[in-house]
Each structure stands twice: as C-alpha cells, then as structure tokens.
C-alpha cells in the first residue's frame, strides 16, 4: 500500500512540475533597450510574465534587424516593428499581425539645430542642408511627397547622433522622445518636428506575431498582452527599476536621459485621462488610413484588409 501511495505521490509531483514549466517565448526588439521598450522590461522585472507562467526572453535589436521577417519565418514568436512594416509585410504575403501598440502618437520626428530658425518641417525640406533619413522608408517617401520642391540633401541614416553633434547644417530623423534629449545632454540643444503632424500617423513600436500562432495560442497570447499592459501601467507609474536595468544593457543612454525620455513619452502612449486598459489598443480606421497612404506611395501593390492587420486583446 505504502509503495502504491509513494508511486502516486511521485506521479502527482511530476505532473505538477511539468504543469509549472513556464512557456518559453522569444521577443525580439528592433532597437537597443530604451524607454520605448520600458513597459516590456518592467513586465519581466516585476514578474508579470512569470505569474502567467511565461518565460519571456527579450532580445535587443539594432539598425536593420529584420524583426518582421524573423517573426514571419517563425524564428522568433513575438517582435517589435513599425505599423507600416506590418502592412508591407502582409501585402507581400505574410500573416504577421499587430497585437499591442506602445505609441498612439508616433514619436518619429526630424531633429534640427535650433539656430537654423526652422519653424516647420516645410522649412527643413525647403532649405539647403543635409538630412539623414532611412532611405526608402515610408516616412521618408511621405515627406518627399509632401514637400516636392525640397532643397535638402538626403543622406543615409545610420543611427546615433555623432554627425548631428559636429555638423551645424545636419538634421536627422529621430524619436522625439529620445535623440533630442541625448543631444541636449551632450551640449547640443535640438529642436524637433513630429512627422505625425504632417499627416503620417502609423502606430509606433508595435508588438507583432504570426496570425497562425496567435489563433492557435489565444490564451497564451492574451496572457502575454495582459502582462505587457500591466508592465506598461507600472512603467508609466514608476520607470526607475526598468530604466536601471536598461542602462546596464544600453550604456549609450544614461539614467538621466532614460528618466527624461520616460516622462516625455507618456503623452505619446496614453492620452490624458484615458483609462489604463486602453493601453496598446488600435482602431481599424487608423490601420485603414495607413494602408491607403502606403498604397498611394506605391509601397504596396495590393491593399491588405485593415481589420486583419491587428488584433486587440
């Protein structure tokens, strides 16, 4: 009898241990650890993933990391992309969908030297000088279309602000929540203009996965997004723990800049007075507008159906 009881106990504990085994997930970022990812790191540090039995490995990216293609090819389950990348990817035959949008207002902007006296994006484009912008990117093409008689010379965008610090006629693309703060820290005040103000407003820093995977793993995905939302609520309240962890991963951005960036980006993530449960949610209208804009820019040949581009959780 004792032997049978012992055997049953062992069996139960084995089943319990197997059940408790956390699901391992890889989550690929498209840039270095910075406040734009603060909520994700908070979800990991504060145990939001863990309490849902998820073991999420967050990997940093860099310039040109092909996160969308990696997700589409199932090399990683979840990743970060720009909303326009999701549309282009689906138009090219993938089933990548957006699940959570960090930025409701896209912080992509153009950063200039204030002494040049520019008052608008139009001034930047219609004045001689150099503008570093990602060649062929939807925001670059959109702006070139908006200001057809531009006089500025385009050069490749390689990330960082080294040239901006040394060349007074140099302007560059940026996240208004990040690079201008770093430039100021290095003694070069920067003025920035939001591209969204010119009419190109894709969601920014969007969490993506394959639709096929999401449909097969609805509960796991819901748990993941719940944990992410929890992480972002906490990061908006208290960014220090995640900032401290991110400074170690990305020493190029110091703790003070991280703190400032976390503060500045709040209004881009959640509009004043909106309930926290609205964090990350997307609308079909916004996706539809983006599809039309990318089609007009000839970046896609077919229009993906807007409500198949995302899923809110």
């Amino acid at each position, binding site marked *: 009898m004792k032997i049978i009881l012992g055997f049953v106990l062992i069996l139960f504990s084995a089943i319990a241990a197997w059940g408790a085994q956390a699901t391992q997930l890889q989550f690929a970022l498209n840039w270095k650890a910075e406040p734009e990812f603060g909520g994700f790191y908070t979800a990991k540090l504060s145990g939001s993933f863990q309490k849902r039995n998820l073991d999420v490995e967050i990997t940093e990216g860099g310039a040109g990391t092909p996160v*969308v*293609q990696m997700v589409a090819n199932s090399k990683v389950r979840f990743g970060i992309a720009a909303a326009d990348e999701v549309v*282009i990817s689906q138009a090219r*035959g*993938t089933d990548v969908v957006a699940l959570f949008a960090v930025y409701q207002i896209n912080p992509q902007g153009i950063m200039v030297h204030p002494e040049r006296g520019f008052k608008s994006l139009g001034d930047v484009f219609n004045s001689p000088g*150099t503008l570093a912008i990602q*060649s062929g990117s939807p925001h670059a093409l959109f702006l070139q279309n908006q200001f057809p008689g531009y006089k500025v010379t385009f050069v490749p965008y390689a990330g960082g602000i080294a040239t901006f610090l040394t060349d007074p006629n140099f302007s560059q693309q940026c996240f208004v929540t990040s690079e201008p703060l770093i430039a100021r820290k290095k003694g070069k005040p920067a003025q920035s203009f939001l591209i969204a103000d010119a009419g190109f407003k894709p969601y920014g820093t969007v969490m993506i996965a394959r639709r096929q995977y999401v449909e097969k793993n609805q509960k796991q995905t819901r748990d993941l997004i719940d944990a992410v939302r929890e992480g972002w609520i906490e990061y908006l309240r208290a960014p220090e723990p995640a900032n401290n962890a991110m400074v170690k991963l990305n020493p190029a951005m110091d703790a003070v800049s991280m703190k400032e960036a976390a503060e500045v980006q709040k209004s881009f993530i959640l509009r004043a007075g909106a309930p926290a449960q609205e964090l990350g949610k997307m609308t079909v209208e916004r996706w539809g507008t983006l599809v039309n804009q990318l089609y007009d820019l000839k970046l896609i040949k077919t229009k993906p159906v807007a409500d198949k581009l995302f899923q809110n959780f």
Partner: protein
Amino acid sequence: MNFKTKISSLLPPLLPLILGMALAEIAVRSGWVPSYLIPAPSEVIRSLIDDRVELAVAAWTTLSSALAGLLLSFTTGTLFAIALSSSDLARRAFYPYAVFFQTVPIISIAPLLVIWFGFGQPTVIASAAIVSVFPIIASTLLGLKSTEPALIDLFALYSASARQMLLMLKIPFALPQIFSGLRIASGLAVVGAIVGEFIGGGGLGSVVDSARTQQRIDRVFAAVLISALLGAVLVGAVNLISALTLGSWHTSERKAS
C-alpha cells in the same frame, strides 16, 4: 574558336546557374519557400527590367567608386610594398600594420569614415580602398621578394643601380603576383564600395538599403546580382590587362601552342 566550341566552353558555368534558378522558381511557385524569404528568379528578372534605369545609374556610381578605390589602393599598396621590400627592418616594422587593413571590420569603422570624409563618394572610395589594399601589398611584396637570385647577381655584375634593379628586374618579375593581388582586390573593392554606400549614400548600397526597408527582397537580389557582375567585370579587366602585359613573355599567360 568556332560556335560549337564556344557553346561547350560556356555550358559548364551556365548549367549550375540554370539548374539553380529553375529549382528556386519551382520552390517558390509551389509554395515550398515563401517569396518573402527567397524571391523567385522571375521576380528578380522583373525587378531588373522594371528598375533598370535606377539600377543602371546605381551600378555606374558603384563601379566608378570601386575603380577609384582600387586605383588608390593599387597606387598606395604598390608603393608601400616597394618601400617594405627595400629593407628588412622596414618590413619587420611596418608589415604587421598592413595586416590591420586585412582584419579591419569595415562595417564598424564605416560610420567614422563619414565623420572623416563626409557623406558621398569620398567615404565610399575610402571604404573600397581600405578593403582592397592588403592583397595588393601582400602579393606585390611576395613578388618583389621572389626575384631569382641568379638574375640579381647578373644585374649586380653589370653594376645596375638599385633603381634599374627595381624597374627592370624586380617589378617585371613580380608582375604575375601583382596581377594576382589585383584580381582579389578588384572583387573586394566592389564589396568595400557597397559597404561604404550603406553609410555614405548612393550606388547599389543605397538601393539595397532602401529595398531592404521596403521588404523588396527581389530588388535586393537584383542589386546583389549586379554587384556580382561588377566584380566579374573588374576581374575580367584585370585578366585582360594581365594577358596583354604578360602574354608575350610569361609562362602564366602564354597560350599552349
């Protein structure tokens, strides 16, 4: 060479290409490989046709930068190798630094090149020159050190000056190695130019960067195909110059009679 011989000499390199393209086409069309990972060759050809003007302009920009870089690396590399060959002490002192050019990860210093030389062609030429200079130094040095001792003795016997020895004996004797280094360097110059263009702008590097951003993998492959052709053109040009220079007297370029 008659038509039949021409076909039979072209067939061996063409066959694997045709077979590979046919397999890729079948794999993509049948859905085994999604087209956003590997484009069907027909899509690449379509891109070559549709974007021909942009690709041609970009190819010309890259070729001119690669050529300028190669010329720069050839001039500096050859002079450097001559200087090193003239003295054992100089060779021991400076050759290890020449190795630096072989090992330098160009992609990591490319952003610095922009700060030093500015955006545009100067950065691209510098990148092409840095990447292609080492094979020229190494091969030229090897060639200059490989002169037959008996011939050196003969020149010494006739009281030839160091300059005569260099220009009339050592350099002609080193030409096969110099051309060998140039062949390697010419392919590398194209690679260096494209890497430089990623940061400095213009040319095929810019086309690849832009196409990658737009997830246009067919266009990336079209640009890569053209860059391979540019490399082949440069190597072919070096082969031609080598044959014209050495054909009449050196065994490496003499045709079997």
